[in-house]
């Protein structure tokens, strides 16, 4: 049996699982379609072989779809195309986003998978109408680790493409009213992250390396600032933190009401300039309900 791990860039969250299974002697192939120039060749070489597909990618994200958002020279298939080509014996979906495990249209295709590895409720129950769901905790959350931090609040900047498009200086000017209130910042791991990190650092902002584990940063701060539809909203919220969401310069589609309904204590600020610690409760009444990823059970499920 070949175990094919498949995903795209920062949305590929299966590397630890891949490394563990490879170490245990399973025949594993890892494809991050943004790192491999032509992953179609590898996929085509697996035709007529017994394959178990494990993916964290959006199902419809083929080359055409991907290029409409993030132009790339790489050549790759979408998850649904891979299923069509390889007809895998087992298909497992492990979401990379806790706030929105599936995006537009995707729920309708969950029945193409044998298992949806659910991070927590409400998804375990919600998606059980489409396919088998097994709750094994949050794939990005492995163990609690506290790191030394300077401020009580951190802003995980999302919708980074908007910042890349506007440029580093306008981005800094936009975020400044929050960052100057002793708020640390972390950018997503992206091609331009370095440039942004350096610029912000030079202007006195406390910046964490984009490669720092977000789980550790969430664990180490009291207040988590987010914007848009970041997965970190859910991750921080479910871990009992005070979570703020900045609406200015953010994309929600039609999901803002969804966000409000599943995270009733989420604190919204319409404008960046509105943000003030005085408007935020000093402590959270919620507890950590998010479980670390149960790797052992995941391997059992994939291989049995």
């Amino acid at each position: 049996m070949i175990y094919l791990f498949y995903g795209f860039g920062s949305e590929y969250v299966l590397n630890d699982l891949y490394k563990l299974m490879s170490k245990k002697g399973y025949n594993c192939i890892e494809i991050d379609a943004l790192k491999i120039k032509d992953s179609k060749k590898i996929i085509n070489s697996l035709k007529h072989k017994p394959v178990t597909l494990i993916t964290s990618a959006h199902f419809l994200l083929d080359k055409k779809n991907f290029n409409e958002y993030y132009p790339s020279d790489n050549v790759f298939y979408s998850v649904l195309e891979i299923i069509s080509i390889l007809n895998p014996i087992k298909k497992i979906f492990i979401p990379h986003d806790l706030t929105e495990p599936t995006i537009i249209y995707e729920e309708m295709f969950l029945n193409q998978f044998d298992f949806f590895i659910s991070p927590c409720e409400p998804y375990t129950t919600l998606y059980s109408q489409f396919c088998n769901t097994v709750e094994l905790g949050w794939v990005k959350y492995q163990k609690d680790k506290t790191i030394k931090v300077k401020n009580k609040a951190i802003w995980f900047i999302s919708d980074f493409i908007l910042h890349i498009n506007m440029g580093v200086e306008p981005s800094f000017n936009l975020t400044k009213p929050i960052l100057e209130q002793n708020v640390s910042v972390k950018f997503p791991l992206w091609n331009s992250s370095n440039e942004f990190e350096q610029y912000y650092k030079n202007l006195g902002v406390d910046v964490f390396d984009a490669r720092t584990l977000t789980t550790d940063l969430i664990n180490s701060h009291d207040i988590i600032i987010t914007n848009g539809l970041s997965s970190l909203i859910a991750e921080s919220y479910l871990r009992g933190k005070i979570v703020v969401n900045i609406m200015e310069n953010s994309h929600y589609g039609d999901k803002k009401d969804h966000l409000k309904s599943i995270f009733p204590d989420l604190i919204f600020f319409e404008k960046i300039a509105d943000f003030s610690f005085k408007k935020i409760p000093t402590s959270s009444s919620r507890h950590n309900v998010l479980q670390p990823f149960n790797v052992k059970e995941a391997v059992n499920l994939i291989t049995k």
Partner: protein
Amino acid sequence: MSYKKLILSKFKNYFKKPYFKVINLIARDLKTPEIEHKQNHIIEEINNIKASQKELLELIKVNNLLIGGGQTLGDDFLSSDQVVIETNELMQIFLNKKKQDIFAINWINKLNENYFINKSTLLIKSSQIDFGHILKSKKIKRFLSITLTNSTQNEKFLHNINIYPTNIKTLSIEQFNTLIIFDPISSSLLLKHNLFEIGSKIKDFAVIRLNINPTTIFKNKFFKPYVYENNQVVYDDNFARKLLHESGFVEVESNYKGYKKVSRLNYKNGFEIISKASNKKITNSDFETITYVGYKLPQTNTK
């Protein structure tokens, strides 16, 4: 006159008066007129009840239509015009059964056997006819039909569910390989509600018929939603595709007089045409009923 007849006539004359006198006495004693009156009254009442039953059935039908309209009105994305269209479609689904039956039998019989062999199939129909034996003859594995009726009371049988169209959303149904909707009006009504998420229960593909303006097949992505003429909803080909993709099908294929057209679901624009027939001038602007196949997995450039 014979001797016998003469005697009989005299006998009758002689006994006529006392005979009727005795009979009337007996009848009065037995209250026969009263019974006859009561019988007549009962017959009249039965007729009244039958008339009331008929009237009541009509009222139920109207009531169901109103409930349907109400449910439709509950969807705030529908305008009042759309509600009128939907109510009209409901009426056509309920009333035009006979017309569809023969067509449906022929159409299903003609469908490619590959649609059925070892597959489980969900058939949505408005006809009361049981298509089970036709499908069994095509080596089908499992079969369920959903019959659209004007009763708001769901009736569940082994291989059939009778249900009011907009109540489909309340159904909990298992996974099927294929979905078939042969009646274009039922398809139209259900697709406008994205098939009430039935697409999420289909593993392989759906075969769905719709009334289309054929001139629009050769146009690119732009579309008008639909036109409503002579109590008939007629779609632009690309709008039909939009509805089919949104109902959970990644690739949609049609074949109009040998001209194949394929579209694929797209995050950004909803869908894109990936294979289009070369332009053809069609002068006939009347609608035609076209069969679409919606696939759950991409078929193009993957084999």
